[in-house]
């Protein structure tokens, strides 16, 4: 035994070991609260037969006023890091599920993707112009409308264990429209710069830097990932750590290089996809790990949706949503039959493209930073649209996957003793097989 000699007791008590009041909230506590509350909300929704996402968002709605009432309004600023990591994982995963080789083999898929994105753009733009919104702002809002929420789509596919043609196409089209939307928003920022009266170099160079820089960074990271992967064993847990590390790192790097996080991570995922010939990175399932961040993402999304924008936007929000939905369905139907999709499948696919959530929010947010007029005018319409689609979207998605027959069917009640076959002594002409 080692005896520890005690220091002499101080003459009077030092209370610094006690917390200060009120206690400060650290990231861990915050993350824990959002995660547990979100999970409970999700389960509540599921028991009502609703998609879990709706539960997460509702918890966010509930937390927002409590947080501001408790004077914890910086809460949402603190959580931005979780949002970024979560979106990083979502976009990477989505990029990884986009299959350029398939689009080459079946051109109707790419055509469908481009059609639904641009028809949506056109219809939304037209509608907003009819409502007398300014041209540039309408174009930016129309670009944001193109994007389907990657997080909602991925989560619904995971939750419903959906598999099949509609599921795969929904994922590919979502990746494609998210990509086109973020590129267009980047381009329209150039015009915003122009309106803001910046010098011509910035007008050209900034979007160019965002676009090419982000793509380049995605490509470099994918190559770097492959390089590292070659040095380690091909074990799924090692590759899981490698990928999550690179994705989180990429989010930070994109931010410090002032690149587009969205484009960077989509590109990183896309380039990491194992096309023929390159198979260094395993296709690990990020499922359970990224779920933690998904929950927090939706809770925070819910908490940051200003319900007031709804009053400000009014009917314009509904026109915006309706035009967007029409664009998605028309685009899908235009090429569905050529690609051999059944009516039922095409309808389901249209529905799965409706969700709008954090990506739209983030795009609107980024635009507003550079172009404050947007936030004051059309920004509220987009936000109000997102609020509606935050609920309607997951419902449409859930319905679509079920309608296509691709969601996992509910397990039938287990019968312990089914009735034995009838004791007919003769063989009947049963169908072939086995």
């Amino acid at each position, binding site marked *: 035994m080692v005896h520890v000699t005690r220091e002499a007791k101080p003459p009077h008590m030092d209370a610094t070991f006690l917390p200060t009041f009120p206690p400060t909230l650290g990231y861990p506590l915050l993350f824990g609260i959002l995660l547990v509350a979100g999970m409970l909300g999700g389960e509540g929704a599921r028991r009502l037969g609703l998609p879990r996402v709706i539960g997460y968002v509702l918890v966010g709605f509930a937390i927002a006023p409590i947080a501001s009432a408790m004077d914890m309004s910086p809460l949402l600023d603190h959580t931005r890091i979780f949002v970024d990591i979560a979106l990083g994982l979502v976009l990477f995963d989505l990029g990884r599920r986009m299959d350029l080789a398939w689009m080459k083999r079946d051109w109707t898929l790419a055509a469908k993707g481009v059609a639904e994105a641009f028809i949506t753009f056109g219809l939304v733009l037209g509608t907003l112009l009819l409502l007398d919104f300014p041209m540039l702002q309408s174009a930016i809002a129309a670009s944001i409308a193109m994007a389907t929420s990657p997080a909602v789509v991925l989560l619904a596919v995971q939750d419903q264990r959906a*598999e099949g043609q509609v599921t795969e196409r929904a994922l590919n089209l979502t990746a494609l429209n998210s990509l086109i939307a973020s590129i267009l928003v980047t381009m329209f920022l150039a015009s915003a710069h122009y309106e803001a009266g910046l010098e011509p170099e910035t007008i050209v160079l900034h979007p160019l830097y965002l676009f090419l820089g982000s793509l380049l960074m995605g490509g470099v990271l994918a190559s770097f990932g492959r390089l590292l992967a070659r040095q380690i064993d091909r074990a799924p847990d090692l590759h899981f750590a490698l990928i999550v590390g690179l994705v989180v790192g990429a989010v930070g790097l994109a931010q410090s290089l002032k690149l587009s996080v969205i484009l960077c991570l989509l590109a990183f995922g896309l380039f990491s996809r194992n096309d023929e010939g390159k198979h260094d990175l395993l296709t690990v399932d990020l499922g359970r790990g990224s779920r933690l961040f998904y929950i927090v993402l939706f809770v925070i999304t819910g908490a940051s949706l200003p319900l007031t924008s709804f009053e400000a936007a009014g009917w314009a929000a509904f026109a915006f949503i309706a035009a967007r939905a029409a664009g998605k369905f028309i685009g899908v139907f235009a090429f569905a039959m050529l690609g051999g999709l059944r009516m039922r499948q095409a309808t389901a696919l249209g529905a799965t493209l409706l969700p709008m959530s954090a990506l739209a929010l983030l795009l609107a947010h980024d635009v507003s930073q550079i172009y404050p007029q947007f936030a004051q005018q059309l920004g509220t319409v987009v936000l109000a649209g997102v609020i509606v689609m935050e609920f309607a979207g997951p419902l449409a998605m859930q319905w679509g996957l079920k309608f296509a*027959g691709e969601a996992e069917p509910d397990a*039938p009640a287990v019968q312990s003793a089914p009735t034995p076959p*009838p*004791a007919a002594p003769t063989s009947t002409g049963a169908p072939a097989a086995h």
Partner: protein
Amino acid sequence: MPLDFTRSEALTFGVELELMVLNTRDFNLTRGASDVLQRLAKVKHPGEVKPEITESMIEVNSSVHRKYPELLAELRLTRDAIVTEAEKLNLAIAGGGAHPFHKWSERRIFDTERFQRVSQLYGYLAKQFTVFGQHIHIGVANGDDAVYLTHQLARYIPHFIALSAASPYYQGEDTSFETSRLHAVSAFPLAGHLPEVSDWAEFNTYFDAMAGHGIVTSMKDFYWDIRPKPEYGTVEIRICDTPLTVEGAAELAAYAQTLAAELLRNRRTEAIAPLYLVYGYNRFQASRFGFQAQLADPFAGARAHVLLRDDVIATFTRLEGVARELGTWSALESMRERARAERSDAKWLRERYTETKSLNDVVRLQAARWRESARAATAV
């Protein structure tokens, strides 16, 4: 009421092949059979392609043939059609006896009344039955010949197991077996072999008894390794794993045809009981050790064991005359070479795993092998 045995031309033959439907992302089994079948229905191709018990399987039925080269040519065409249509849906197709890493619980039962009923009756066995086999049909003139041939072919079951073995991995693990698929089959209550009846009339008595107990309603309820198929007028060998290529599948069918020809020509008169005495043991040896199996010889007396590889080579050599008559010798010769080198699909799969250390990659290469031998074939 007796089961009627449909007459068919002796030694005509055909095959059924169960195939995997895979996604191209991680090469797991996926829900895609109904979409592939829907597309195939609009394309001209020989034979028939049908659904199987789960949404991750499709079954190819060839037409009836007399000659091995015709069967091979047809299978190549069907394969090309399936591969082309599947590619448009971003799905891959592969041979092999079992998927190396899928989880049985994730499978979906194909939505037909019969499959749903099977699923209800057998519980997890039905989804576990997502394994992929080749069935070979050999035409026989009557029910008595069918019973005779079924018994005599029992002696050669280990050959078919070793020659077709292509499922060393199951549920993500190396099973140490050359074929793990047979365990999924053996779990069914009516698996096994034909009882020791000596002719069709006696078989009918047995069938009536089973039907009378309410245990079976048709031949389809017997999951035997070899069974008479009265509706088609054939004997059906159901022991083989689906090989990794259609060429392999056609060769196995050629072997079955040649063997049947020889057995029908030189009728055996020995008692059949000893065949079944060693049956289970030999079946296990072959599925565990492949060409290295030690087979108990039912007619050579106590403790007589023979190496499966040597028995296969000796049988091919013995069949050469008949094979040349039937035009199957090239198939048998190629299989004899493989047996000499002890090359099997199971070995090929294990080698790919050693190279890639990833079962996803093994399945990707498996699908490429299925697809590319198709292109090589059309190029020739």
